[in-house]
């Protein structure tokens, strides 16, 4: 890990971090990635790629409409709203 990568990640996560916080995270993330890197040492040549270990497959539902929330319920916890819509800062 280097500082540029941590800055890139913080941008993707939309986190505004101070230079000190970035430095702290650089140290922590480097240690975490190093720990995860240990996994690379395991021999997985005989193991199928696995996305889930729950053992479930094909869990699907019929295409049927179920009641939705009322608009007031859906917006109940929204900090800002306007004319039934969620009001958010514009993307710059």
């Amino acid at each position, binding site marked *: 890990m280097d500082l540029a990568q941590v800055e890139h990640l913080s*941008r*993707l996560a939309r986190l505004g971090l101070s230079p000190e916080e970035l430095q702290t995270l650089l140290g922590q993330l480097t240690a975490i990635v190093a720990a995860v890197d240990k996994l690379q040492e395991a021999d997985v040549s005989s193991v199928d790629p696995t996305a889930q270990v729950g053992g479930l497959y*094909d869990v699907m*539902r019929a*295409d049927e*409409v*179920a009641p*939705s929330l009322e608009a007031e319920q*859906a917006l109940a916890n929204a900090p800002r709203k306007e004319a039934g819509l*969620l009001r958010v800062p514009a993307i710059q």
Partner: protein
Amino acid sequence: MAELEPVIGLEVHAQLLTKSKMFCGCRAEYLGLPPNSNTCPTCLGLPGALPVINRAAVEMTIRTALALACRIPEFSKFDRKNYFYPDLPKGYQISQFDLPLSLAGQLEFEVDGQRRACGITRVHLEEDAGTLHHAGEIHTSNFSLVDLNRAGVPLMEVVGEPDLRSPREAPQYLRALRQLLIYLGVNDGNMEQGSLRCDANVSLRPRGQREMGVKVEVKNMNSFRSLEAALTYEVGRQTDLIQRGMTIVQETRGWSELEQATVSQRGKEEAQDYRYFPEPDLPPLKVGRELVEQLKAGLPEPPMRLRDRLLDQYEISAEQVLVLTERPQDAAYFEAVVAAGAPPRAAANWQAGPLQALCKAARVEVERCSISAGELADLVRMVEAGEVSGSTARELLAEAFESGASPAALVTERGLAQVSDAAQMDAWVDDALRQLPKAAADFQAGAERALGPLVGAIRKASGNRANPDLAARLLRERLARPGE
């Protein structure tokens, strides 16, 4: 410098015509609903809510993939595509990354009467985002308004190979794909309302070179016309840059209808790192071979093959076939009219002409209009047999279209059947010759066009019921010129 060759690939997003959303029971039809009235904990991304896959969406995607001759792997899964945008409530879109529902197919389309094929990389399934409304100018307003009615609507993505070689091919590819989706009944093909959307990847390379140039993604094209205009502009822009020795920047550009130009969106959407990972809330899919076979068996005749067959089977023109295969229901109606005894060419003329005009004006599909295929066949047969005049038939068709009556029954009811009775025809011919002696003399003197007014007089006297061909023949006999 070697001639530059455009390399174009299209990514098409199609909302599926399911009843409910991709992972919850909210309605998939969201247009016209009050804002934020079509949501639930799942599509709002509330903590603890779990998605469940809509079986119909999976089947529609597999049907589309099969119609595009794709391979359906036995194992497929969903992944999270992570990015932040206000129309994406969960902070990620459920999509498919490395194990999509289908791979490696192709789409046939036509350009200037020539058949071309374009590779299909994959067809996969994901969910749509909500919609953003901007107060005032998008660039100056400091807030946006979010409606999540559309969030979670099933979205199928058809990724095309970069096999297109000119901006002109792109709308033709898209037309063929759109028609196929309509045939399959999986999408309504409405580009204006955004239920069918198209992005393009565009690059240039010297003709003959294998490796690709720097790729630019072009977005925001919501019609066939704007797709071709945007690609023409973008190819021109890149050509100009290369010829001036400058480099192409890999970026996303949006088509601006106002400026008729592609505009860089770099500032707004920087190159993204989506950090895909397997969706932990959705167990993977094992797509059974029986299901694939069953879906394959239920596929409709694809438009291209249907056109070939109609052209082969009936004596109708290529233009007529094109009109009659706009939708599968049009072709089915036509074949029903022919099966009910109407001659194909006349049936095609009547369906694509007067009947389609009536349907368009009334905004109704031909298979739902009040004229059944059997009724149109009866009318067409009567016209062809000379039992009723074309103009009378047209009027009756319009009237029956409104009232729901049978046009052929109206002919009998109103006594509008064309008269071919010899004695009656002779009487009308006598009258016409008496009324227009000058026209009669002119015709006998060799003026062919003098026959017109005489036939007209008979038509008038008969209240439009006299068989005009028979009238003309009788007049010719009566006015037989010497030596004929």
